[in-house]
């Protein structure tokens, strides 16, 4: 089953605390996840820590599932960082700012594991 969600990215304290430790697992843990509310997670039949594949018109990325009941239905949040940016909208809308919030996405359960930061970036260098 695929969940249609509105994807936003943003800061978190944990992401901020790892700004200067981005090569470490702590940063991976702080950024490589997607928050949905528990009912949306339920619809996907996944629980926290399971893998999710997030797909948009601009790419796809695998991240961990995380519950946040502060999110309304159909709102997905990924902390700002390379994982979120793998699927965000590059169009700068004539004013310089890419689409980092409000990107239509499809989210599904997956068996794949999220890539660590270096492997993610390595892809870009090699493709």
């Amino acid at each position, binding site marked *: 089953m695929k969940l249609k969600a509105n994807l936003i990215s943003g800061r978190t304290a944990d992401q*901020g605390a790892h700004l200067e430790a981005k090569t470490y697992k702590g940063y991976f843990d702080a950024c490589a996840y997607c928050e949905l509310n528990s009912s949306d997670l339920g619809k996907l039949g996944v629980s926290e820590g399971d893998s999710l594949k997030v797909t948009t018109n601009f790419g796809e990325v695998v991240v961990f599932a995380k519950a946040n009941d502060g999110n309304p239905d159909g709102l997905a949040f990924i902390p700002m960082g390379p994982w979120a940016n793998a699927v965000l909208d590059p169009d700068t809308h004539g004013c310089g700012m890419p689409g980092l*919030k409000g990107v239509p996405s499809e989210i599904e359960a997956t068996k794949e594991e999220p890539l660590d930061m270096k492997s993610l970036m390595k892809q870009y260098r090699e493709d």
Partner: protein
Amino acid sequence: MPVIKDAVCSLCGSLCDDITVTVEDNKITKIENACILGHSKFVGMFEHDRIEKPMIRKEGELVPVSYEEAIEAASKILVNSRRTLSYGWCSTSCEAISKAIQLAEETGSLIDSTANVCHGPSALAAQEKGAPGASLGEIKNRADVIVFWGCNPVHAHPRHMSRYSSFSKGFFSTKGRKSRKMVVIDVRKTDTAKLADKYVEIEQGSDLLLITALRSAVNGHEDVIPETVAGISKEEVLELAETLKNAQFSCIFFGMGVTQSRSKYKNGDGVSSLISDLNQHSKAVMIGMRGHYNVTGFGQVATWETGFPMAIDFARGFPYYNPGETGANDVLVREEADAAIISAADAGAHFPQKAVRHLAKIPVIQIDPYANPTTELADVVIPAAVVGIEAEGTAYRMDAIPLRMKKLIDTEFKTDEQIAKDLIAKVRELKEGA
């Protein structure tokens, strides 16, 4: 053992300047008054993944070289480029930013700051309507209504509410939190929203509709407001408008929820107009919640040196400014840039995939104290001192108040300012040679 008082925390735009730092054999062993972010920066730095030596990429691998070799390699990239993007310069001092701008001018480059993916639209908004603001102490001493719109200080600016806003006590706001009504407008119930007296949940991307409805209410045109706007009932809109109108002093703090959402800079533009309208009834100001500790400083320095706050294109020898055309992401996504120099910011982590993929294709020079995703794309890596800890300099708080950052410990690493100077000198030398 030396204890340094009133150090300035060089992490976020709050620029707290009451930090007490204990230094033992050139290491920071204790830090007082800082938040979790500041603590990780000051104490955590000794575990962080420091770039130990300058490096140049050879056969796909970064190999250590001397500063001189790295500067030479970087300068060659700059001299041979027709359209260099210089990006970042926000987690550094104004003195370094000034030199970075001179380097961009002398190499006919394009220079942009992290505002490109943060508060750039707030600058465009100010260029439409102006920016009616105040220093943070005005909020501390006077504000009885505080609105956080599309921002989450609990996470992004942890001490903001205790030092400057919700919880702080001031001359007229003697009871602190009790003296103030706190309103949070957001698309999800954030940890900041949980602390609010009033939480308004709007449909993502509909900020301008709510702002416009509030203006209509404040300006006495209730009749044009439909029964629901942005997912909020007319009644709730009118109530919020009354709260703002009846305030003695209100401040709208706004964040990337406002700048990055649909209708981008028109949101900030609308907030600015709302503030102007509100001043017909009471005192109101607005302040952007700036992220990188000196992104405000970049805007200040760039504005007095080039006339523009960001996205400055020196291709023709004089500054040209047009975000949407001359922004960092504009020239990367359009694959215009044929080289990039990225300093004190991390495009690799914070730009959309399409832009990052282009960075991977062109020569990239990185100047930074720490390894990060940009390092994975870089061809020349120049390690730098940590400004605000290993180097002093000026930074501007989110309310444009300039502060002097202290040097707390010694270092072997060159400062961003020195590296920029070295690059200018080497570029001149290569040009004369040519």
